[in-house]
């Protein structure tokens, strides 16, 4: 009998804490609805790998095998991007391409956080991996952190997905702090143009070519995102598009969270740096939001009175899709029940999706 329970005595307090953290992630996923598709597998995985002498990790452990097969070689993020690309309708962006500039401005948090992480003593590659939390885009964060071989992958993933779920709590105070009531009430006319099928088909191809030429490190991610979108828009692969949107995305997501948990072993995760990374992740989201809003305010200085932009839409430039667009739309309605900013903010939000991948590629160009 004593032999049967001998492993119980092997549990360390660090492993017990990690199991509690796993339980907390599962609680947040189920009870609070925070990114359940990722946080629940991540939480369960955290428990799985932190049981003493866990056979799930180690040289032949199933999570190690999955990690090497799907994360270490960046396969899972790419496959997930096919599904995401198939889900996104770029029409609001094609209707008003100029909105894309806000997607670029809202990547400021990535680079600001990179500098802050360096200030706090992280080496350049780890600082860049932490900065990429500001991409507000799980696959890009995994891709960059893994490419740069960061030892903080687990903490970075937890921070990235947690803050994405917390966008409705993180963004509004920052937006309110940086805008006046009058600015938040600015109405923007949305003119719906019909976008031809040819344009919708050429769009993913053109984006892939441009990004590939300028930022070759990110061409695989952008290419898979745009491949998914091409399947969606071509009109002859509806069945594949549906599979990419549902079955493929679900299948990859199912394994992604639990596989990332392989990097949540107590000895890797329970360090003071983890707390610092969680804090820096918040900084990244705050400065992304600030970058977008302040850039919109800057543009407004040069626009005539009747063409002013509601600066809140700049905040939707962070990639967290579609939460960020919804936050901006909701805040617009709170200030003025007849101010509908949804289409403009969706346009900015999908451009943030592209810009975050470009930012990831640029980081790899500059540092990798």
């Amino acid at each position: 009998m004593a032999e049967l329970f001998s492993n119980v005595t092997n549990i360390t307090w660090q492993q017990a804490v990690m199991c509690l953290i796993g339980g907390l992630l599962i609680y947040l996923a189920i009870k609070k609805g925070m990114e359940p598709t990722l946080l629940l597998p991540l939480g369960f995985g955290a428990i799985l790998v932190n049981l003493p002498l866990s056979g799930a990790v180690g040289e032949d452990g199933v999570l190690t095998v999955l990690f090497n097969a799907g994360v270490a070689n960046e396969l899972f993020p790419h496959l997930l991007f096919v599904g995401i690309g198939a889900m996104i309708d770029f029409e609001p962006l094609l209707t008003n391409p100029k909105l894309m500039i806000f997607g670029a401005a809202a990547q400021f948090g990535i680079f600001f956080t990179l500098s802050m992480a360096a200030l706090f003593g992280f080496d350049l590659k780890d600082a860049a991996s932490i900065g990429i939390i500001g991409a507000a885009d799980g696959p890009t964060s995994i891709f960059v952190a893994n490419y740069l071989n960061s030892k903080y992958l687990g903490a970075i993933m937890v921070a990235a997905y947690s803050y994405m779920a917390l966008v409705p709590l993180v963004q509004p105070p920052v937006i309110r702090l940086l805008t006046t009531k009058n600015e938040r009430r600015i109405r923007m006319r949305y003119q719906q143009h019909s976008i031809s099928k040819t344009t919708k088909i050429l769009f993913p191809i053109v984006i892939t070519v441009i990004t590939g030429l300028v930022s070759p490190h990110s061409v695989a991610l952008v290419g898979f995102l745009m491949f998914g979108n091409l399947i969606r828009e071509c009109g002859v692969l509806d069945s594949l598009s549906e599979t990419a949107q549902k079955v493929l995305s679900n299948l990859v997501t199912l394994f992604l969270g639990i596989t990332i948990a392989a990097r949540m072993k107590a000895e890797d995760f329970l360090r003071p740096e983890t707390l610092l990374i969680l804090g820096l992740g918040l900084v990244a989201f705050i400065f992304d939001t600030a970058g977008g809003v302040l850039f919109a305010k800057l543009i407004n200085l040069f626009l005539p009175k009747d063409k002013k932009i509601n600066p809140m839409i700049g905040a939707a430039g962070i990639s967290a899709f579609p939460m960020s667009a919804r936050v901006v739309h909701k805040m617009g309605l709170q200030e003025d029940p007849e101010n509908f900013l949804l289409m403009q903010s969706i346009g900015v939000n999908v451009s943030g999706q592209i810009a975050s991948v470009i930012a990831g590629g640029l980081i790899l160009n500059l540092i990798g």
Partner: protein
Amino acid sequence: MNFEAFLNTLPIMAKGMAGIFIVTGVIILSMVLLTKLSAAMRNNKDK
């Protein structure tokens, strides 16, 4: 606190942000061209 490392990252921040704005600018231009071209082609077809 490592101020030297912080200062060393500032050029990366500048290059990174400049890079994003340049790529985005090129994408915007090509999207505008794409939309105009396909509209012109549609008009020609209609005629």
